[in-house]
């Protein structure tokens, strides 16, 4: 392995950007591919599949054998709102491999008793996201129902290209939210990325079931996401 490639690979991983180390197993020639870098033909298809699935493996292309080692940043979920839905969602999300942070400035909601073992921050999202910025391997779930708390992180999530952005509320509530986000200067195409009403439509009837619908929606968005084509 080329030392420069190792440095590049580690730099990308530290920056939480998806990256793939490609090695031709005969001869050992290797290269580092960032998400969105063009790779032609059947090898390109194998590379794209690895970026989507996060699974490393060998690909045989035109009689040549390649090892594709994919490094996806560990996916995170930031939940705005320390509510009943979040209690179930946090536990299930951690079981399925997501790192979870819950943010809610209302200290009556954000208590250690209700969220033991969860990374819980009882501060305004504006302040928290300055220190812990969102990125494309983070899902943002806004469930407080309060525009004062939800709107800013929703706008930030769309700007940061979060792979999932969901907001709790009826169609009517969401229509008013769309107006407010438009007034903040967010593009209609970006606003349309918000999952609202939040979660897959499974007829969820109570907060824990809504949590299931949200998590399924997040997993679908992660595994079926379009790949970035403008990687820096």
């Amino acid at each position: 392995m080329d030392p420069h490639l190792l440095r590049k690979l580690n730099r990308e991983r530290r920056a939480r950007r998806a990256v793939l180390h490609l090695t031709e197993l005969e001869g050992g020639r290797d290269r580092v591919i960032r998400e969105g870098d063009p790779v032609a033909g059947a090898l390109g298809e194998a590379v794209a599949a690895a970026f989507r699935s996060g699974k490393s493996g060998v690909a045989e292309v035109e009689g040549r054998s390649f090892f594709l080692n994919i490094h996806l940043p560990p996916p995170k979920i930031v939940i705005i709102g320390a509510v009943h839905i979040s209690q179930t969602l946090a536990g299930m999300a951690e079981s399925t491999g997501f790192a979870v942070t819950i943010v809610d400035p209302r200290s009556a909601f954000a208590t250690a008793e209700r969220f033991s073992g969860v990374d819980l921050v009882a501060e305004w999202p504006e302040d928290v996201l300055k220190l812990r910025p969102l990125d494309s391997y983070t899902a943002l779930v806004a469930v407080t129902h309060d525009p004062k708390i939800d709107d800013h992180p929703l706008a930030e999530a769309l700007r940061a290209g979060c792979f999932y952005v969901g907001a709790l509320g009826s169609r009517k509530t969401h229509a008013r939210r769309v107006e407010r986000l438009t007034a903040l200067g967010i593009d209609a195409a970006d606003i349309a990325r918000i999952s609202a009403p939040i979660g897959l439509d499974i007829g969820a009837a109570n907060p824990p079931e809504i949590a299931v619908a949200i998590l399924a929606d997040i997993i679908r968005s992660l595994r079926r996401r379009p790949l970035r084509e403008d990687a820096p």
Partner: protein
Amino acid sequence: MEGIADDDLDPLSIAERWMDDGRMVAIATVVDTWGSAPRPAGSHLVVDENGNFHGSVSGGCVEGAVIGEAMEVIGTGEPRMLDFGVVDETAWRVGLSCGGRIRVYVERLG
């Protein structure tokens, strides 16, 4: 990354640190698994010229053999593909007790 203990770093970060310290390094990578292999494809074990190592390619079953091969790869610079399974009677020595099979690619850094 000064001040971070080796234990807090993953194998590829360790490899970079060892390289910066002027050590010769080999990287072993699980490229294929069959059956109940304990570590998935993409897992790394890094080894220096003195046999210091970090990471794993199995549950500890074949690391000893991989480290020996890695030190030879550091010497020759020629990458190798290693195949481990429980297919013969020497399996108790360098095989996978879990019944799986793995292929491990070993290459020198630089």
